[in-house]
């Protein structure tokens, strides 16, 4: 396993459920989770010291620091090690448009499902860069 799957979401139940789905779908055996953008960015500063890469499922609306702020603060070096997937329950088209302006790899509408996780894995294998 050459990458970590990280869930960033302020809703703890959602985090727990998503992690279980990721495990069940075989996307990752050991997904990580953070309760907001700030916690994630702090952890990232530590994590990036290692050469590991990260698949981040990033919720848009969060207290402390939301997805936009997170992406605004990511450094070039960090971007090279991270693939960001925006996850949101919003069906607001404007969120989608705004997200497309960042170097994101995907936009996942909640709820996350086993199928969506498997699709993600397929993409990653065909991409190859993380494998």
């Amino acid at each position, binding site marked *: 396993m050459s990458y970590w799957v990280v869930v960033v979401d302020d*809703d703890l*139940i*959602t985090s*727990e*459920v*998503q992690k*279980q*789905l990721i*495990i*069940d779908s075989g996307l990752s055996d050991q997904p990580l989770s953070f309760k907001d953008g700030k916690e994630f960015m702090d952890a990232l500063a530590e994590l990036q010291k290692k050469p590991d890469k990260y698949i981040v499922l990033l919720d848009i*609306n969060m207290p402390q620091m939301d997805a936009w702020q997170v992406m605004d603060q990511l450094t070039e070096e960090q971007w090279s090690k991270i693939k960001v997937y925006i996850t949101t*329950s*919003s*069906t*607001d088209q404007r969120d989608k448009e705004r997200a497309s302006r960042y170097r994101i790899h995907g936009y996942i509408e*909640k*709820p*996350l*499902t*086993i199928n969506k996780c498997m699709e993600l894995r397929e993409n990653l294998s065909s991409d190859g860069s993380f494998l």
Partner: protein
Amino acid sequence: MEKKEKLTVLILEDLFSDIELIKLQFFELDFDVNFIFTHNRSSFEEKIVKEKPDLVIADYTIPGYNGMKALQFLREKDELTPFIFVTGTLGEEKAVAAIKAGATDFVTKNRIDLLPAAILRSLREREEKIKKNAALVEVFERERKFEALIENSSDWVSILSEDHFFLYISSSVNRILGYLPTDLKSLNYFDIVHPDDQALLYEEFSKIKTSRELSLPPYRVLDKQNKYRWLDTIISNRTEDTAIGGISVNSRDITETHQQRILDDIAAKIQRIFSSPKRFDTQLQLILRLLKNFGSADYAELWLSDVDGSRMIRRASSFKGTALIPFVQKSKTVKTADRKSGVLGKIWAAKKPTFLSNLETDQDIKLDKLAKNELKSVLGIPLMHGGKSVGTLLYYFRSSIPELDGFYSIMETTNNVLSVELQRRKSEEELEHLFNLSPDILCMMSLEGTIKKISPSVESNMGYPPQEVLSKNFAELLHPDDLEKATLFQRNSLQGKSIHYFESRLITKEGEFKWFAWSAYPLVEEELIIVIGKDIHEKKIIDKTLEEQNSQLKQIAWSQSHEVRAPLARMLSILELINKGNTTDMKVEYIKHLNESANELDTIIRKMVDSTINLNLSLQ
């Protein structure tokens, strides 16, 4: 040597002794005498014709002839030559007959010494007679010339008594008025003077008592055809002159020129009235009175067409005589009329000047009973402009056969002026109403924005009396934040572009601001911009409220997309795990999560419904 007067004397005498006796009598007279002697008829008559004697002396009895016959012969030729009988005794009877026959004198032979005196007297008498005759001939000639002058002149000459009866009427009256002198002979001059001119003329005539000659202002007299003609007249007082013995009246017919002058005068007056600052209705009243008086109508009305021409509205009426007052007052209550019925209807159906003489009996004409008693006929004149009806003039008359010439002649001169002016004033009046009554602000400004004219609505809209904003610049009234927009607005106008919608705030007199929507139409030729401002303040405030409510609705929509979908997505994920996940030992935990999410969702939806209801309330 003094030259003696020549005298040819014919002597009819058969006795030489008597001839010598007569001749002797001339010696003591101072004449150069040429005697011609005759003693029979043929020689006498011949000498009378050929010699033309200055004096004839004859014996009463001559053989084969006699003195009386000789006298008769002479008198047939000549009345003046003295004829003296020198006879024996003459009976008184014969003497009278001789005098009657034209003898000048008698001298009896026994008193022949009286002959010289008789001769002198007879010659003197002849001299006087000749002079008198010459004078008579002269007078006669003069009168004949004068008469010819009067009879042939274009002037009508008459001589009136001091109480204005005709004494003499020149036959030229026939040419001017159509009368024969005998038609007028027993009349008073004032019998043929127009009733309206009588008072004035009477006054003028009374002045002649103290002055010799007067030139009278034009007045009208009735001619033989029952029409009035205008006369220009000079009267002179000749009552002292025994040959005339009255007021001589010398008149000239000036009907044509006078009428034209009056018509021109009326047309000018109409123009003047219309350009005066008087109210439109006052102007109409003055004009109608002018026209009515010119044509001598008893009652007149001026009706103007409604804005769309469907109705007529009476704008002026004018009457003569007090009998009509009740009717006029009553008719004031009815101001509008259908163009298709009654008198107006008949005139508009004819589309030309129409005379109706049967007002009394015409059932279609619903004229007031009072008026029908007084007014017998009406002349209606439609006023047209550009093929459209402007109005109608109605002239009513007491007579059923009134004199209409005046109206027809004035119609030609003035109707055009009248129609054009009426149309212009009517349009002005209609536009004025629009301008004065419009709730919008109507404004004319220079291209630089100086306010030239502004509707009174500026007061109700902004609190300014119109005169307070006149000559101000429009920019001074604008809210400072809108100045930039206004500059653009002005630039467009300067380029001659219309602006159909432009919102800006004006500062009211109380210092508050108010929203207006503007349109602007530049008139490049006139260097003017027409600006129309509509109060949209209320609408603007409603817009603002709507905007706030709209953002609340957006909030609701956002809540729907985030707050509702968050727990819903969570629930769906849990269900996914329960249905498809590998782990079954955590199911109790998941159902707990499901429960919590469902409750959360319920709370959110309740909150949302509450806020929507609140929003509805504020919208109402």
